[in-house]
């Protein structure tokens, strides 16, 4: 397996959605290819960070009351 093939499969590898033979090929490739390990680690970091975005705590929210008033006008 070369780097392009490995990178193409990294998301499915992360999701554990590949056949065992392919998993072994990727694992073998990652053992000997530091650049691909770097990409895999980065993708993993993006996915784990994405999960904690769901709470939406850091988003700058607009004024809830102003939107409520707009909504009230639109409803009537």
């Amino acid at each position, binding site marked *: 397996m070369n780097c392009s093939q490995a990178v193409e499969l990294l998301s499915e590898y992360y999701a554990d959605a590949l056949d065992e033979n392919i998993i072994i090929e990727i694992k073998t490739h990652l053992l000997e290819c530091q650049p691909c390990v770097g*990409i895999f*680690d980065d*993708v993993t970091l993006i996915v784990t*960070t994405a999960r904690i975005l769901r709470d939406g705590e*850091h988003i*700058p929210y607009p004024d*809830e009351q102003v*939107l409520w008033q707009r909504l009230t006008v*639109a409803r009537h």
Partner: protein
Amino acid sequence: MATVADVETLEPAADSDVDLARRAAEGEDAAFEALYHRHFRRVYSLCLRMLGNPTEAEDLTQETFANLYRKVGSFRGDSQFTTWLHRMTVNQVLMHFRKRSVKMEKTTFEGETPIQIVKGTENANRMPVVDRIALESAIQQLAPGYRSVFVLHDVEGYEHEEIARMLGIAEGTSKSQLHKARLKLRDLIRKQAALN
């Protein structure tokens, strides 16, 4: 035959989502307002992530709650209210995309350079530790189709099967777009870090 205890457990708790939805459907404005304030942030944040634009997110939030006002009577309590409203929000955004004729991207990035791996150079350009702000900013720079799949899968936790159904694409396309979105995000975060 149901016992009194059974009936009591079937009654929604006062001011629960189910109770408020029922009262809103019966025309109680205060109940609808309570639902609005309880779910406003969740709806707005989903709209913002999918649209990548605060002004559009405000408009779609308003449209979603206007739609909720009209349809709250059709909530039967088969699913959680939050799940039902979440799905309604996603549908509202997708309808907006269709009106805008935003095409869901093909599985390749036309005109973009694929990831080139040069042995011995990759680690020097490793992505910096990614924080929430950097990722949010990068998500907003994604093309709409990639952004939708990434937000629905990695942020909101939908499965590919459901995403494919919602977006009207093949499940394989959803998987492929997700992977390309992740790689694009990595690229955007690295580029942003290089500028700082």
